[in-house]
Each structure stands twice: as structure tokens, then as C-alpha cells.
């Protein structure tokens, strides 16, 4: 996923989710081991005002694929399962939400049996029934949800639904019984990741009579603590309390504090900072402009929250296009980039750290290694990145016979990405290429660089972890199945497809069903192995900075969905 989009184009490991609770790692400043404190009505009321430069598209929870709205869906929509409301790593735990308990697995992991909670109503007063559950799963395919083919294609009958979405029926895949309130999900094959897939917003339960097309700006009734009152992408999004909501699980869907949540759009990042400083807004959504970082870090330090993220900024290189169809050219880029310099552009060492491994630090399978730093090679890696090796990079470019070739760098047109592009252009020119920077709108850059029709040679992009699963990075970003030529949904932007590597990843995923530790060890080896081919250059791992107004309290940070908006207090 990208900075703005909490995109789960990923295969998610439930076993790894559980393992994540065990692995050591960086924690949020505000993190604690547990979940939310009990609801305190004394702090309820008021309005939380959020500001952003732009809206994030459709409000339909089956369609929207952005972190901006997934952050709001936490407090409004529910699935059979959900991610726990908790600080830090506790937020990775999958808990029962509309289901009474985690599913009973049978038939070798191919059958999941749930019982739907009784007495829950949608925000329009309509009761939540098992028919809604079945219809919601069918709607994933009917509206062509972005993850229909990658997350839910393992449900029995999904293959037909993917071919003929309009008439999708999952009679054998999602079997419901209104008398017992049971929901049985049948899979074609056991899937270690299915638990997590069922906990994301695309699998939330919506009324059976929801439109069988993208609902766009029309809110779909919710089950959570809040519902959407109005939405104008050019102006604002307003959430109010769901009148039918009664807390059924403090872990999955706790009662919220503000009476209203207003998201105002069209506010530039620097104006967002000023608004928060002046208590005209509670929180600035967009990254804080580099020019204002020192100001908020000194004058407003107590209002700043910095949290580590398992994520990476990286440079996918198209392995099917010159010059990066030559492994030496790709390795040259890996040696040439000064990761510390890129960290500076991002905002400094307090907000990011250089890395070269594909799996981020504090992530299952991660090992401390760097094959592309001064004095190291992919076969004899150092433990960490220390400095670029421009001389070796130049030599590799010369050896590859690609010197002098033109290289286009596609970046988003926001300040930080453009600066990254200009820096990369300077580096590529210095090692012998003729580089140009092509900044394009951030709204389309992420899909543009995926489509092979656009002949993108190298780009700057980000991948933010959704779940602590190595497959979420390696399999999703470098697996053959993720490479779809001529498609905007080809998340394997490098176009790297190595059958042998794919087979080993399948082995690691299968191993994850029974032995997560062994699987993670294998993922770590695969990380080092694939980076010898250097389909990408990993630059650094970023942190999340939240800037709140002085009157905003009760900040909690989920490593899963970032800040809990519904838990913010103004009283």
C-alpha cells in the first residue's frame, strides 16, 4: 500500500498475525500491550475536525482502497471479524466482530463456521441478518472490489463470480442458515491468510439491498459507532453517531467519544498545520511539509506523535525494459543511491531510517543485512547500510553496456516525491544515464507505474504494511501472480517473475500453516535471494507523524489502521 492508500493488494498471513504478537519490534510512543481503556462517558461529546488536501474517492467500503477512509471505516463498518482496537502490536490481533467468535475451522482448513451476533442493527434501523452477510460477499464481486480477485478468489464459486460479476452467486461458497444464524464459508483450498482477509473493510457486512454498483458519494448504512451523514468530495465528509449502535465488543467496535467527526477537504498541507496550531482543526491528515517540521517539533512537541511503521519507500525497476532488464544496471542503482540522503529529503533521521532489505525491520522474516552498501556484495552482505558505492555503481553500469541510455523516473507530484525524483535523477546521471523526472498527479501515479503500457523504467513509490506477513511484501510485490501486463492492477511493478522464486514463496506460505517460525526464517532467506536480482532498490523505512491540536486528547495508534479517530476526545 502507499502513503495515502492503506491498500491491501496483499496476501495476508493469519499465522503471521498471531506471530506478530510474539516478535519484538518498535512500538508506538503511545503503545501499550492492551486495548482501549473502558469507555468513559464523561469525555463524550463535541466535534472532531480533520483536515486534508483532498477527499479519497468513493465512500463505498467495498470499493475504497485508501488509508484515509479505511481509518474512518474502523469506526463505522464491521465485518464478521475485525482488527482489535489496541495500541501498537495489539492492533494486529484479529478478533470476532459481528461474529460471536473466531471461526471454527474444519475440512482441513477449507471450511470456516461463524455464528452471527443477534440484535445488531444497521444505521437505518434494519437488522443485520445472515442474508446480509451472504449478499455482502457476493457484492464484493458484483461491484468488482479491488481485492475481489486477490483476497476472495479462494471462496467456492468465486471463479465464476469473477468472470460474470453481475450474476454472482456464492450459494456454495457462503452458506447461511437464518434459523441458527450460522455462516459457513467454504474455500477451494486452505488459506493461511483468510482470517485477516475477512477482517478488512472490503469484507464488511452491508445491507443486502445495497446498490450493486459503486455507491460513490452515497453513504451505505453502517453497523459501527458512527454513520456517514453527508459526503461532498469537494468540501467535506461528516460522520455522526449511529443511533442504533450499542457496543457489543469493546475490542472490535468500541463506543466513540465525539458526537461528530468532520473531515474538511481542500486544505493545503501547510494550511492544515496552521489550522491545527490555531486549534481550528484537531488533526492534519497529510504529511507535514518539511518546512514546518522543525516548527512543530519545537513549539508544539507535546502535540506531536511519531510512530514506527513497517513500511518502505522503494524504487521498482522494470526488469523487462532497458536499461533495467540488465541485472548489473539494477544493482548499480542499489549501490548508487545514498539512502541517508533520501532520509534527509523525507524529514530526517527521526522520521525514517535507511534500509536495503525487502522485509522491513521488526517484521516477520526480516534479517539485518545489506548487500548494497560500501564494502559489501549481495553474496557477502553487511549487517546494515552505511554508505553508497558510486565507483562500483559506475563500473556496473559500464559493464552492463547500458551507459548513456535514457531513463525516465516517474514520481508523484507532491513535494517529497518530486524531491526524491530530482535526487534520483542526479544519481542516475552521475553513474552514466540520461535521466529525466516525470512528476504526475498522486491520484494516478500509483496505478500508472503499474501498467506496462506506460513503459515506466523506474519509479519512486511506497509500500506500507497492513499485516505483519512477509507474503504481504514479497509475494505481493514480486510474485508472478501479481504481474499482469497492460493492467493498472499489476502491483508487481518491477514485472519480476521468477518461477523458482515463486515456488519457494509458495513453500514458505504452506509452511506458515504449520510452523510460522520456520516459515519466517525461509522468508528471510528469500528476501536476500531476491535482492541479488535487485528488481527494486529499497531506500528507507518511514515513520508516521500525527500532529494534533492542543485540546485533543486520548490519542491511540494502531499499527494496523493508524490513529483511532473515534477515540479522540475534545472534552
Amino acid at each position: 500500500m502507499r502513503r495515502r492508500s492503506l491498500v491491501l493488494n496483499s496476501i495476508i498471513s493469519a499465522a503471521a498475525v498471531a506471530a506478530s504478537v510474539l516478535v519484538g519490534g518498535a512500538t508506538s510512543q503511545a503503545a501499550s500491550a492492551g486495548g482501549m481503556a473502558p469507555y468513559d462517558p464523561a469525555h463524550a461529546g463535541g466535534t472532531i475536525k480533520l483536515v486534508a488536501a483532498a477527499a479519497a474517492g468513493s465512500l463505498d467500503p467495498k470499493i475504497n482502497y485508501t488509508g484515509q477512509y479505511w481509518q474512518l471505516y474502523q469506526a463505522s463498518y464491521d465485518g464478521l471479524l475485525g482488527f482489535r482496537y489496541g495500541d501498537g502490536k495489539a492492533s494486529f490481533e484479529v478478533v470476532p466482530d459481528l461474529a460471536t467468535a473466531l471461526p471454527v475451522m474444519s475440512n482441513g482448513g477449507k471450511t470456516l463456521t461463524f455464528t452471527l451476533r443477534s440484535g445488531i442493527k444497521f444505521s437505518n434501523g434494519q437488522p443485520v441478518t445472515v442474508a446480509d452477510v451472504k449478499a455482502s460477499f457476493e457484492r464484493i464481486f458484483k461491484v468488482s472490489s479491488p481485492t475481489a480477485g486477490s483476497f476472495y478468489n479462494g471462496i467456492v464459486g468465486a471463479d465464476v463470480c469473477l468472470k460474470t460479476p453481475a450474476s454472482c452467486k456464492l450459494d456454495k461458497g457462503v452458506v447461511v442458515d437464518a434459523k441458527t444464524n450460522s455462516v459457513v464459508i467454504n474455500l477451494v483450498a486452505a488459506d493461511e491468510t483468510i482470517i485477516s482477509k475477512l477482517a478488512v473493510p472490503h469484507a464488511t457486512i452491508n445491507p443486502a439491498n445495497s446498490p450493486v454498483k459503486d455507491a460513490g458519494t452515497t453513504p451505505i448504512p453502517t453497523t459501527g459507532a458512527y454513520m456517514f451523514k453527508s459526503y461532498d468530495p469537494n468540501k467535506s465528509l461528516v460522520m455522526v453517531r449511529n443511533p442504533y449502535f450499542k457496543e457489543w465488543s469493546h475490542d472490535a467496535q468500541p463506543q466513540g467519544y465525539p458526537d461528530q467527526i468532520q473531515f474538511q477537504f481542500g486544505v493545503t498541507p501547510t494550511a492544515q498545520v496552521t489550522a491545527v496550531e490555531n486549534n481550528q482543526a484537531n488533526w492534519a491528515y497529510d504529511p507535514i511539509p518539511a518546512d514546518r517540521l522543525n516548527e512543530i517539533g519545537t513549539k508544539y512537541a507535546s502535540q506531536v506523535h511519531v510512530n514506527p511503521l513497517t513500511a518502505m519507500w522503494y524504487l521498482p525497476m522494470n526488469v523487462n525494459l532497458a536499461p533495467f532488464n540488465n541485472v548489473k544496471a539494477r544493482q548499480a542503482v542499489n549501490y548508487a543511491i545514498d539512502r541517508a540522503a533520501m532520509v534527509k529529503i523525507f524529514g530526517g533521521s527521526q522520521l525514517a531510517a535507511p534500509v536495503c532489505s525487502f522485509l522491513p525491520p521488526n517484521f516477520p522474516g526480516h534479517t539485518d543485512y545489506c548487500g548494497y552498501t560500501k564494502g559489501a556484495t549481495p553474496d557477502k552482505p553487511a549487517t546494515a547500510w552505511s554508505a553508497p558505492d558510486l565507483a562500483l555503481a559506475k563500473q556496473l553500469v559500464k559493464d552492463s553496456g547500458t551507459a548513456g541510455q535514457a531513463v525516465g523516473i516517474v514520481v508523484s507530484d507532491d513535494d517529497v516525491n518530486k524531491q526524491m525524483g530530482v535526487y534520483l535523477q542526479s544519481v542516475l546521471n552521475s553513474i552514466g544515464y540520461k535521466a529525466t523526472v516525470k512528476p504526475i498527479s498522486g491520484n494516478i501515479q500509483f496505478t500508472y507505474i503499474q501498467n506496462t503500457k506506460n513503459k515506466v523504467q523506474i519509479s519512486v513509490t511506497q509500500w506500507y504494511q497492513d499485516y505483519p506477513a512477509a507474503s504481504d511484501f514479497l509475494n505481493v510485490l514480486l510474485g508472478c501472480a501479481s504481474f499482469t501486463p497492460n493492467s493498472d492492477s499489476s502491483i508487481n511493478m518491477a514485472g519480476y517473475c521468477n518461477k523458482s522464486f515463486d515456488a519457494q514463496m509458495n513453500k514458505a506460505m504452506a509452511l506458515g500453516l504449520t510452523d510460522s517460525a520456520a516459515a519466517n526464517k525461509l522468508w528471510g532467506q528469500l528476501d536476500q535471494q531476491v535482492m541479488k536480482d535487485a528488481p527494486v532498490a529499497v531506500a528507507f523505512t518511514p515513520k508516521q507523524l500525527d500532529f494534533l491540536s492542543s485540546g485533543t486528547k486520548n490519542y491511540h495508534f494502531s499499527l494496523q489502521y493508524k490513529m483511532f479517530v473515534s477515540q479522540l476526545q475534545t472534552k
Partner: protein
Amino acid sequence: MSIKESSEAIFSESPGKIALRTLRRDKRSIISLAILGFVISISLLAPVYAHFIAHTNPFNSSLDALAHVGGKSVPVLEASTTGLGLGVTPIGPTWNPSSYFLGADGQGRDVMARLLYGGRNTLLIGTSAAIICIVLALLIGVIAGYRKGWVDAILSRLLDVIWAFPVYLLAISLSVVLLTSGLTVGFIHLGPGSFALPILIIGVVYIPYVARPIRAQVLTLREREFVRAAVGSGAKDSTIIFREILPNIIPSILVFVPIIIALCMLTESALSFLSIGVQPPSASWGTIINDGLALLYTRPWVGIAPGLLIVLTAASLNLYGDAVRDALDPKTRSRGDS
């Protein structure tokens, strides 16, 4: 000198010489030319400044470079050491010509060196676009005004089409399209980073603004007695155009030149500010203002310096244009002499 002698002297001089003499006496002309001369000179000396004084390559990122301030070497990008230690700020003006005189930009590049190189590009593009604009406008205006009839109708509608679009909207649209993939016409290919693209785009969008008045003037001239006499005497069209029409519209063209250069320069800066003009790592005043926008709170000089130069240059060109107009206008001149 007696009034009679003076009058004889004036009548014995050509209008061009009179205009030149008037311009030499006009303070506006002298001041504006001095400013323009200064700006052009320092811009042309950009490589000298970068290589021999600042010892820097303003087109390479220098995030780890050092600046010399008060005998000490300090990083050009300074990490915050106060509060939470957030952010990295480029060094501000040192006012030392040999080391980051105006400070560094977000890539650690010397702003002063980029400013001078940027001036070269801005002036080059502005002047080249103005020349293209005026030459094409002259061609279209003279042909349309002289030929009249269907030729005039077609050319005038063509100008109307261009004129129908707001100039910046048209320039932005053309830039967005052409800068993505470049322009290929037959065997000529202009790459996305080529300066020829903004020159062509800017030159074309201003053609109607020059061609229309020229056409109107030619239409008037065509009906004047001396042109009718030339037609009546059987002179060729080309002879009439070059001997009778063109000499009479040259004063208007001379007035247009500085004004159109200023307009083209401003348009170039605007397009570059919007990232659809001069492409990195090249600089223009517009791109430097764009760089400065992200540093407005901490390093305002990055944006202010090119802004000041744009204002100074555009104002000087307009001032000079006014002076030229007055010098070429017999009525104004006579008022001034009286």
C-alpha cells in the same frame, strides 16, 4: 541654434534617428536598459560564478555538501537538534559569494548559482518565444490585412480559435500534453526536456495578441494614398509589402518587442513554476520559485530572489517598451519637445 536651424536639423534626420536620440535622452530608457544589461550580464556569467567563485555544480544534488561559514564547515542540510529533532533545513544565505551566497535549496544546491543559470534560461526562452511570436504574427497579420477576402477570413478565424482560449489555460494544456512525450513533426523530434517546447508553446499562444493589431494596421495602410498610388503604378505585391507596408508597421513591432518578451518571460516562469516548463535539473526563475515554495517558512530567500528578478526584469522591459513607444510616436515626441 536658431529655430530655423533646429527645424532644418530635425527635418533632415530620419524618424529612426530621432527616435534613437529621444531614447538616449529618456531616463526611463536609460534606467531600464541598465537594469536589463545587469540582469543579462550576470545571467550570462552563471558558469563563471558557479565554476570559479562558488565552485559548485548547481545541477547535481549535494545533500551531503558542506558550506563555509565564518571559517567553519557546516552541512548544507542541517538536521534539527532542538525539540523532537524533526526536519532537515537547507542552509540560509551566507552572503559569502564563494559559498552558498543565497543559501541552499532542498537538494543542497547553491541557490545563487541556480538563480543565474535560471536567468539564462528564462531570458532565452522569453526572448526566443517572443521572436517566434512576432515573426509569425507579422507574417499572418500582413498577409491577412493585405490580401483581405477569404485569406483574411481563414487567418482571422485561426487567430480567433487561439484567442478563444485563456492564454495560460492554452499554454498549460499544450505543455501538459507535449511535455509528457515530446513533439514529433516528420523527422524533427523535440524531447520532453527540450527548451524548444516551451519556446514554441509560449510563442504560439501570444501570436493573436500581436497579429491582430498588425492586421488592423495593414488594413488601414492598404487604403492610404501612397499604397494606392503604388498599386496604381503596377508595383508587385511583394514590393508594396516590403517598401510601403512594412516600414510603416515597424515602429509598432518595436514597441511590441519588449512587452512581448516580458509576457513570454512571465509565462515561462508560470509554466515552470507549475512544473510544466523547464524540467529538472535545469533551472529557470519559475522552477526556483517552485523550489522555494516548499521552503517559504524557513528559507524564504529561495523563493523571493527569483521573484524579485522576475519583477525587476519584467518591469524594466515594460518601462523600456513605454519609452520606445513614446520615442516612436511623433505626437508624444512633439509634446515632449515643446
